[in-house]
């Protein structure tokens, strides 16, 4: 029998609704698992035993009294530590916010709690979201549950590792240049970066305003849809928020891929590690068998994405951190301090050229979506790396090794979904990402759900 820790929220919810599973029992079980695994994995910065049990008891009481709120009621959720939480320390993975206790919750946290979710803990992350590795100089590196000698990916490292280790059924993440999708790929879980502005970023510590995307990370497409149902929605007090109608994202999980037109930009076939190349070729064949029509396409403007991503991220992050960089530079890790310092030297001309490139890239993507329903590529071109002692260099190198594949979706604001693609020759997970038109989350989740039926971590191995 599957341990409760590995059951998806979509499986747990009916058990809770039918009163076959108690939220208190579930929460206690997960907290026990966290107590055993977290000293090694370092997925949680702050496990919330008391808060979680209090919320679980409250949920249980409501359900027993016949006030079942819906499929998140009584489900424990890990919250990335850059989402503000009322009365609970929110560090952003940094010494800069080491003692910061916010007066209120981020909008997304409020929504998840209002739906009956239980806050299980605050998750480890790369400092201020500035990295792809999972290294953290303050709270320690998060380890990959598949093999503790390997990185889990970042910046939402704790979220992805907790899911892979069966410590939480649902988690939140943020994605500025790949931070939901990279750890999802390296840890073998599902990470969604929604359309820019679909989920309110109010109350989430900024990394780079124009690229920041809050979103869910889970163990299935159905669970992503479930979380999106509650997290999405217009926020009049959040400038980037979209006035878009929110739909029931769980409704389209038909697991159908027949006739879906998928384009693979040739950009995503260049510079792949041999293992990634092989797994991706296998995945292409499998998608065809599922009924997808696949063709390679050219989007030359993708060549500008790395420049635009680097220049915008570094500049915006430097602007946000400028005062503390002057007064508390010792409190930043060397990797993040170097990124922020380089951002202070990015010229206004470079920043604006990056924003010009961004508009051209967005237009090029719109054109591509006239031909195909979805775009596809490996989430990152490299295999999951081992943890290096030279963590500063490794974090900076890993940004350069992963950002070119992930940042195009941040620059253009299109939704992107990373799904497990298979296992590499070291037995570590690799991911691939579907990208769609703005607000095409339903289609992405449908594709993810169809792909999931092929059990890629079991059957696609190098």
């Amino acid at each position, binding site marked *: 029998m599957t341990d409760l820790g590995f059951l998806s929220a979509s499986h747990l919810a009916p058990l809770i609704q039918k009163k076959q599973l108690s939220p208190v029992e579930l929460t206690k079980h997960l907290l026990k698992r966290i107590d055993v695994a977290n000293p090694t994995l370092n997925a949680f910065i702050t496990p919330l035993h008391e808060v979680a049990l209090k919320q679980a008891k409250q949920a249980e009481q409501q359900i027993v009294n016949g006030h079942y709120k819906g499929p998140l009621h009584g489900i424990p959720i890990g919250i990335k530590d850059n989402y503000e939480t009322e009365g609970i320390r929110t560090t952003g993975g940094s010494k800069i916010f080491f003692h910061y206790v916010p007066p209120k919750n981020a909008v997304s946290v409020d929504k998840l709690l209002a739906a009956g979710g239980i806050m299980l803990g605050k998750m480890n992350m790369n400092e201020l979201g500035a990295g792809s590795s999972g290294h953290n100089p303050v709270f320690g590196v998060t380890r990959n549950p598949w093999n503790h000698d390997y990185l889990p990916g970042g910046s939402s490292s704790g979220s992805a590792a907790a899911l892979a280790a069966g410590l939480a059924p649902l988690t939140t993440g943020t994605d500025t240049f790949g931070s939901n999708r990279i750890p999802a790929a390296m840890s073998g879980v599902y990470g969604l970066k929604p359309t820019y502005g679909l989920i309110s970023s109010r109350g989430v510590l900024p990394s780079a305003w124009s690229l920041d995307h809050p979103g869910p990370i889970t163990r299935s497409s159905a669970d992503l849809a479930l979380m999106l149902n509650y997290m999405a929605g217009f926020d009049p007090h959040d400038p980037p928020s979209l006035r878009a109608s929110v739909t029931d994202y769980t409704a389209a999980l038909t697991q159908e891929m027949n006739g879906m037109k998928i384009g693979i930009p040739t950009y995503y076939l260049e510079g792949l590690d041999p293992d990634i190349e092989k797994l991706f070729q296998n995945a292409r064949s499998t998608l065809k068998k599922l009924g997808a029509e696949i063709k390679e396409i050219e989007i030359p403007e993708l060549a500008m994405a790395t*420049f635009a991503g680097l220049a915008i991220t570094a500049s915006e992050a430097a602007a946000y951190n400028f005062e503390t960089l002057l007064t508390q530079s010792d409190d930043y890790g060397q990797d993040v301090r170097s990124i922020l310092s380089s951002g202070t030297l990015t010229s206004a001309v470079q920043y604006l050229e990056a924003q010009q490139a961004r508009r051209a890239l967005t237009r090029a993507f719109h054109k591509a979506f006239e031909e195909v329903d979805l775009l596809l590529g490996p989430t990152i071109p490299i295999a999951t790396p081992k943890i290096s002692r030279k963590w500063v260099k490794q974090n900076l190198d890993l940004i350069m090794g992963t950002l070119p594949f992930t940042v195009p979706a941040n620059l253009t604001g299109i939704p992107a979904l990373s799904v497990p693609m298979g296992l590499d020759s070291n037995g570590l997970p690799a991911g691939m990402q579907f990208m769609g038109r703005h607000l095409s989350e339903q289609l992405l989740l449908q594709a993810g759900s169809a792909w999931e039926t092929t059990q890629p971590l079991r059957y696609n191995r190098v």
Partner: protein
Amino acid sequence: MKSKKFLKQAFKSNGMPVKKGDVKYIGMLFTNVAKEQMTLKEFPEVKNEVPMTIVDKGELWYD
């Protein structure tokens, strides 16, 4: 990579403190951005684009 001297002077003129050990990493990042910026040369039409963040219609009021 930009010379260490150049970077140190740039920080000094901006009134920014910089740690000796950071300079090699900053130089690496700076060089990466400059190298990637060269890709724009293949797309001269990009110069005619309005930068993405300049026009924020959400802040315009007509009544």
